[in-house]
């Protein structure tokens, strides 16, 4: 015990130092370590979550881009097909219309021809009649004295036709 006293070891001080340390330990644990460590862990988790989310978002974006591209390709293909089809149908319709027009023109032409023929014939007939009459009149005038009218008329009609 004498040695301890010489080294300055005193029960009261020893206890005081121990109590001081224990209080410090408890207080730091309660007010510093626990909140700080919890906080650090929380942040680590949050950062991990954030990184995971970012990765997922990137993957999703890539997938969406891919999908978009696919859709675009499909749309382009469809558009081309549509264009081709439209072109074909337009061509077909054009041809049809052309043909129709041609037919109509032909028909009109034929009608016009027929009408013209008819008219010409009619005119011809009229002219013939008129001519016949004129001739009859002229012949009558010339031959009034020479022939009697009945035989005369029969003879003239026969010769004109």
């Amino acid at each position, binding site marked *: 015990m004498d040695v301890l006293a*010489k*080294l*300055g*070891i*005193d029960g*009261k*001080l*020893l*206890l*005081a*130092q*121990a109590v*001081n*340390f*224990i*209080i*410090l*330990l408890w*207080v*730091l*644990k309660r*007010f*510093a*370590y626990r*909140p*700080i*460590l919890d*906080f*650090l862990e929380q*942040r680590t988790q*949050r950062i991990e979550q954030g990184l995971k989310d970012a990765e997922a978002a990137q993957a999703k974006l890539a997938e969406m881009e891919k999908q978009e591209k696919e859709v675009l390709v499909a749309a382009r293909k469809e558009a081309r097909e549509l264009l081709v089809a439209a072109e074909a149908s337009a061509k077909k319709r054009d041809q049809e219309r052309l043909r129709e027009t041609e037919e109509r023109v032909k028909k009109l032409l034929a009608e016009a021809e027929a009408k013209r023929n008819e008219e010409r014939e009619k005119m011809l007939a009229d002219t013939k009649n008129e001519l016949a009459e004129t001739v009859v009149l002229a012949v009558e005038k010339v031959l009034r004295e020479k022939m009697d009218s009945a035989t005369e008329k029969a003879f003239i009609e026969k010769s004109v036709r």
Partner: protein
Amino acid sequence: MEISIAAEKLFEIATFPVTNALLVGFLVSGILFLVARTIASRMRMIPRGMQNILEIICEALLDLIESVTRDKKQARTFFPLIATIFLFVLFSNWAGLLPGLGTVGLIHGEGEYATIIPFLRSTSADLNFTLALSLFAVCATQFVGIAALGVVKYGKKFFISPLHKPYVIGTMVGILELVSEVGKIISFTFRLFGNVFAGEVLLTVMLHLVPYFLPLPFLFLEIFVGFIQAVVFAMLTLVFMKMATMEVEH
């Protein structure tokens, strides 16, 4: 100049002697608590200023403890004690290096025999503190061991029956283990005390020999020693604790 192994008594409160080392211990505790509390209560997701420092200290310590325990949960359990030992020993070591050490204080005695009782004395330069801390650390080690293994299994580390395999040798090893637990207390106590006390004495002597510039390298050395001793105390406690929780392999 008078060098005293024991911490000097400054005053008494109802027969309780308040020594300079105890005073510094209280001051360091108070400052540690205030600083930690202030920062910890205002933690922000994006760290700024002092919060960074505190986080670095905590994370580095936790990583260190985890690298020894190899167990996250155990590291969290050990962390408060190890961190407190480290921080308190570190700052009480460094507190003894503040200007005024061994020079500012009460005048004791008269005339030619007058000496100074300094206000500041590193807490670690007082055997009362180092012994208290060692006792606490070793007791905590026993407690941790019993909590992890149970009383019987933990007791088997020290009390080995002479009737089984290594026979008397095993029993002797057990007794040696028991003695080494006491040895831990003593080595803890005197290692820390010796280093810090020697540092203070060295600095005081240097300061009296050559007041300017010469003490500077020693001051840096003592800063380093103070850090190393804090690390050693904390790490040894940690290793002893880890060893106490592990089962004996035969």
